[in-house]
């Protein structure tokens, strides 16, 4: 019940975070920027519009947006947000389940991108998978090195361990893992310096390239899915590195407190993302591996430091 509530919260809150980041970015660049409610308006627009579907597209194009949304929603069920109650989380918040639910969603998006045979879809997908290939081992190493402290492979376990031993959040392991995770979040949310979410240059797109063909409801679902994914990765960061303030039961008061803390943390993270986006340029596509190698090395050191007990 609680996890369903949390997942619904993700759906409702994801566009808000997107709006806040956009607004903050505009402010940091000296513009007024759109209202923070703009993503909700966009969604309303998409869901009221008819869709133009390429005559080359198969049933994949019609089904994937729903499938993708469902998978990301399921992933949201496994993640502790403002309360970590082992019983309420799907599969007790198993991190393999979470990562591969999102991986499956990515696979579906790849199929969608290639379905209509447009050059942009193909290019976007090939780049997206190229990045995914590099980011996956890093994700595992980073989360596992944090997880080794709790001797388990679930977000719930990691979170509970950190909550009961607050001092462990300041160990070298957690700090290194946090740095690696920050880089992963930037990559996975398609932000600068990896991908430019605001570009109109179709030749440079990664995530946008794969969904360039879509319109109407399908585009709405894919956009909402991407925003949810962004919020989920930010939550992963907090679960593994900074879970403080999270409720450990389902008592209404504790949960309410957890919600407030979580929202505050997420918005703060949004500020960080907006700042990074305002001061960096997009990397050359083939230097992305260098960026991710750095993340990988950080998580490797996190893993090692776990054994030397620093």
């Amino acid at each position: 019940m609680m996890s369903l509530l949390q997942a619904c919260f993700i759906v409702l809150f994801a566009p808000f975070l997107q709006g806040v980041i956009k607004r903050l970015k505009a402010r940091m660049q000296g513009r007024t920027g759109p209202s923070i409610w703009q993503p909700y308006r966009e969604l309303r627009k998409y869901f009221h519009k008819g869709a133009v579907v390429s005559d080359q597209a198969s049933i994949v194009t019609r089904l994937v947006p729903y499938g993708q949304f469902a998978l990301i929603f399921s992933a949201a069920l496994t993640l502790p947000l403002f309360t970590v109650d082992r019983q309420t989380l799907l599969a007790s918040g198993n991190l393999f389940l979470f990562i591969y639910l999102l991986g499956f969603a990515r696979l579906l998006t790849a199929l969608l991108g290639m379905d209509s045979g447009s050059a942009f879809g193909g290019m976007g997908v090939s780049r997206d998978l190229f990045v995914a290939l590099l980011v996956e081992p890093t994700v595992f190493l980073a989360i596992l090195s944090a997880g080794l402290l709790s001797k388990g492979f679930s977000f719930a376990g990691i979170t509970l361990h950190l909550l009961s031993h607050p001092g462990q959040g300041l160990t070298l392991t957690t700090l290194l893992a946090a740095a690696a995770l920050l880089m992963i979040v930037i990559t996975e949310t398609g932000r600068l310096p990896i991908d430019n979410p605001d570009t109109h240059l179709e030749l440079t797109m990664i995530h946008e390239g794969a969904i360039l063909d879509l319109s109407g409801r399908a585009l709405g679902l894919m956009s909402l899915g991407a925003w949810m994914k962004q919020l989920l990765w930010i939550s992963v960061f907090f679960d593994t590195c900074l879970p403080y303030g999270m409720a450990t039961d389902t008592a209404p008061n504790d949960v309410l407190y957890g919600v407030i803390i979580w929202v505050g943390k997420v918005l703060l993270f949004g500020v960080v993302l907006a700042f990074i986006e305002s001061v960096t340029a997009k990397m050359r596509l083939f230097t992305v591996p260098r960026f991710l190698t750095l993340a990988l090395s950080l998580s490797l050191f996190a893993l090692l430091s776990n054994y030397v007990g620093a």
Partner: protein
Amino acid sequence: MEYTGTETVVLRAELVKACQRLMQTGFRLLTMIGTDERERTGHFILRYYFAADRTSQIALVTVRIPATDPTYPSVATIIPAASWYEREVYDLLGIQPIGHPDLRPLVLHGQRVNAYPLRRDYPLLQSLPEVRRELQEPALDEGQFIVPVGPIHAGVIEPGHFRFLVAGENVESLDAQLFYTHRGLEKRAEGMHVAEAMALVEQTCGVCSVSHALSYAQAVEAVAQIQLAPQAIWIRTLLAELERLYNHVGDVGNLCAGIGFSFGTMQGARLKEQLQQLNDDVTGHRYLRGVIVVGGVAKTFSFAEIERIRVTTMQILQEIGEITDAILSDEIVCDRFNRTGVLDAQVVEQWSVVGPAARASGVVRDVRMNFPYAGYGELEFSVPTFQTGDVMARFQQRIAEIYESGKLIDQIIRRLLELVQTGDGTPLLTPLPSLVPGSFAIGISESARGENVHFVMVGENQTIYRLRIRSASYANWPAVPYAVPGNIIPDFPLINKSFELCYACCDR
């Protein structure tokens, strides 16, 4: 201003040899104009204009093409730069270059039909026949793909169709099909009064309005052989530099947009807006239109306006220094700019590339210096060049030119203040004498993208008989595909932006 030049009339068979001789003596192709003069002389006439930058000479090779057999040996076989001109003349006038290496239609897409809109007997309002547009795909090797892009793009930008031959992300070759915004400006201009056509000429391009107006006015004034009032000359020079300044400042920001570097993009946009508001304040038009007229200028500047120009440009120059320093100190920016989209100096020579693109590849080519017009002959300035020919060089080229513009504006303002102070009552406008039908001239001016060359031939009653607008973009577009192979697809927008070529004034 008239260019000292020589006209050589050659027979068709000697055309290639005559052009080759000029090329060997340091000339480059400036423009080529085909005219339908069957009603006057019974011939089509082709005029190849050559320019020698070092010696400031213009040479003209004229060849008559009989109406009964509209063919001639192609010059593009020895001068690649002639390629587009000859294709265009074939499209619009139906004069066939024999032996041309690439005879695909250029301006009118699809297969050739027997309709040549620029011939005098083709009515202005008659639409062209429908044609099928077929694309010939090159043979592909294993792992190669064609990525077609445009003409409609994801952003609000001008239309152009690009076909990349790629292997993975690497571009092996690029084919650009332009001319989607061909409006038939030159056909429309025929028969218009030379003074009234200015409104049309200014619409050739959004951001090079002053340069186009200047080239056109100079061509007509050369035909009329009139002298301008000094004040008119200095106002024109000032406008030309104001145009260069807002273009270069805007382009610095645009280049940052190509790599998603929002700091540079936004600062560039902000400064460009300030300059355009300045334009609006002092001329009543954000793109400086309507001031330059044939025979002079339509308005002068008051003390207050000149002071406004001085203060704003000084402030912009100061800010652009801080901003470009910040941009160039970013590691990712430098990584993206360096060694991207290298344009070889050899390509510059072969294709007669002009403007900042040529100078960034180490070729000194600036008509302000080589063929001084307006007030430039009396001003002190240098022509900066860079050697590497990559995006970084073109970026720094623009920054260097911004500073030169600043120095020029300072000098021009001093000259102008003297003239406004003494109030030498000479009218700003010199009346046009009666123009001799059939006389022609070219006018050249340096825009922010390079030289714009206008050819004007006058007809009866002060009207235009033939107008040929050769914009800097027209000269540089054929060279862009040479800068792309060896780069990856996501770098193309950046390379394209570093040339910052215009589609509308290329297509006309």
